[in-house]
């Protein structure tokens, strides 16, 4: 089944025997896999294979029926999403989330974790610290926007930019939270080829700088080019894991996608 899944040298994320059912449907059926530190790991599978459910389980949005999730060696099973984030795991969503009434850089500033200004009391007891960290975060946000080559959007309303640009902003904002492992849910769905290429470049660059990625993607060309290894999910369990080449030539994977193999 999942040969070598747990035999990772240095897993930043380890999923063990995870289960979740909705009524009679086992959306996640004893899934076990790991994400090696420093990799871009792809998560693919046909529609309904349970990829998004798995993301929700890992990031704490769903409570698993069984099994464990470990981030950096810490058991985070059943924790709230914000607690999981504290251990260095951040996720994005399939559909870009819009922040009404905010500019792009304002929306970016939601990213940094543990800002002193997020404590109501400290707004009044130590406004100096708040201002300092706000300045630093703003500079950092603008630096990252520049790296993503979207700094011209900084003061645009966050709701007025294109879907592809929103995906870029989401990725940029997630980076402000300084994740060790970043879960991307379909980063290029509905994004035009030029922007998709840009996203790919960015993900690769961030990976080289030390961020580990786990990404769901339906665009095979995109994921095969970017990710290694690739985990294939089918009907809630891990079908196989391997290099893009290996996965592409695996009959079981082809069967799963074509609905055969029964």
């Amino acid at each position, binding site marked *: 089944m999942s040969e070598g899944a747990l035999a990772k040298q240095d897993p930043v994320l380890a999923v063990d025997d995870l289960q979740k059912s909705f009524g009679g449907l086992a959306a996640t059926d004893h899934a076990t896999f790991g994400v090696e530190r420093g990799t871009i790991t792809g998560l693919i599978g046909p529609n309904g294979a349970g990829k998004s459910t798995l993301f929700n389980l890992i*990031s*704490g*949005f769903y409570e698993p029926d069984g099994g464990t999730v470990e981030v950096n060696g810490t058991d985070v099973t059943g924790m*709230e*999403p*914000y607690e999981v*984030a*504290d251990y260095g795991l*951040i*996720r*994005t*969503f399939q559909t870009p*989330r*819009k*922040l*009404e*009434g*905010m*500019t792009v*850089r*304002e929306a970016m*500033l*939601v*990213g940094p*974790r543990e*800002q*002193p*200004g*997020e*404590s*109501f009391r400290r*707004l*009044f007891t130590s*406004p100096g610290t*708040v*201002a300092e960290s*706000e*300045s630093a*975060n*703003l*500079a950092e946000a*603008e630096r990252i926007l520049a790296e993503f080559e979207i700094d011209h959007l*900084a*003061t*645009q*309303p966050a709701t007025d930019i294109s879907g592809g640009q929103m995906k870029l902003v989401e990725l940029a*904002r*997630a980076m402000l*939270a300084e994740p060790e492992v970043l879960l991307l849910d379909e980063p290029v769905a509905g994004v035009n080829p030029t922007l998709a290429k840009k996203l790919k470049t960015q993900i690769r660059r961030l990976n080289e700088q030390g961020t580990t990625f786990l990404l769901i993607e339906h665009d095979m060309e995109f994921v095969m080019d970017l990710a290694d290894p690739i985990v294939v999910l089918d009907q809630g369990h891990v079908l196989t894991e391997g290099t893009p080449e290996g996965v592409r030539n695996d009959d079981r994977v082809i069967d799963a996608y074509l609905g055969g193999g029964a």
Partner: protein
Amino acid sequence: MSALTDPRGAVEDLTRPEGWVLGVSAAFLLFLLAALLTGALGPTYFLFLVGLAGMYALLSFGLNSQWGFAGLINFSVAAFFGVGAYGAALFTASGSPLVELFEGVPLLPSLLGLPIVGLVVGLAVAFVLAILIGIPTLRLRADYLAIASLGLAEVVRLIVLNERWLTNGSAGVRGIPGFFAGWPVLGTFPEAMPGLRLEVIPGSPVLLETAFWQALLNVLLVLAFAGGVYFVLRRAHRSPWGRVLRTIRSDEDLARALGKDTYSFKMQSFVLGSLIMALAGVFYTHLNLYVGPGDLDPITTFYAWVAVILGGSGSNRGALFGGIVIVTIREGTRFLNDVALPIDPAPLRLLLIGVVIIAVMRYRPQGVLPPQRELIWPSAVDGGGAPDSPDSGVREQKGGGGDE
């Protein structure tokens, strides 16, 4: 911004609706001034209205910090208002049932009659109530808080109506002193001031007597309350704290995914708003000098909602504006009695508010004075080497100008 150093520039900086509001407000002030000078509007009554407007502004501030900031739907504005009002009334009124209840108990009777104790008790009870209702509902979707708060408002009202041993039931609480009673100087200020007789227009003198000075003190009190609350909310609104609340309002899951403890933030927003509402209640008690169960009717909640929607949700000055408009409509319609109308004008009040709401929703769904500038801690934007403020604002075609 720099309205004092550069008045012309400050005026040119205003957006159209801001200019419009400013113009109408100026005209309205002139009208009031004329009414005052001619004696058509008694100065004491006028100050009472100002106090009432301040009270509604406080209620709107409270609701704005819940619904406008974090998107919490609270239909129990009247309950928190009532808790503040009754807390203050029961601890200060000479006719309070607590006088009898506390009799013979050591220490307790000495707490009665002090407005500051009433203030603290009113706020403390509101604090506890907000947490109790927040714990089960704030982890759930927004709708649950809406329904639970609707129920809470009725529960509080029925308790006040029926628990006569504590609240005097439908008779209400009388014999409430002014807020400054017993204070050094301020306590005797209204009596100490001489009666003044101003005659600006011959034949219609304006009398300023003890009641006037009492009302003036109330206005100063509400200005202090509202000013303090406005200062706190303004700072909170443009802070990272406020930004998390606005993220929750737009998309709570996003805030959670980015590592924000949304339950805690919502609780803070809810408690803060409830305390402000209770503060409005405390002030009302000392303004009106009588509270009864009727003050807890849902209409108070309704008025606060109208004020926030009208002013623009999320906007503190919008809430202030909305509060003033509500009082103008509520009290202004009384004067329609003087004008010969074929129908009784009292029911017109609610009709008029309904019409105003429909008009705002149709032509300006974001409210009259929505928040404008992007909300980043001011010194970070000014000094951090950041680019200038946006050339095209977020919600308007103009950035800057207003306070937020």
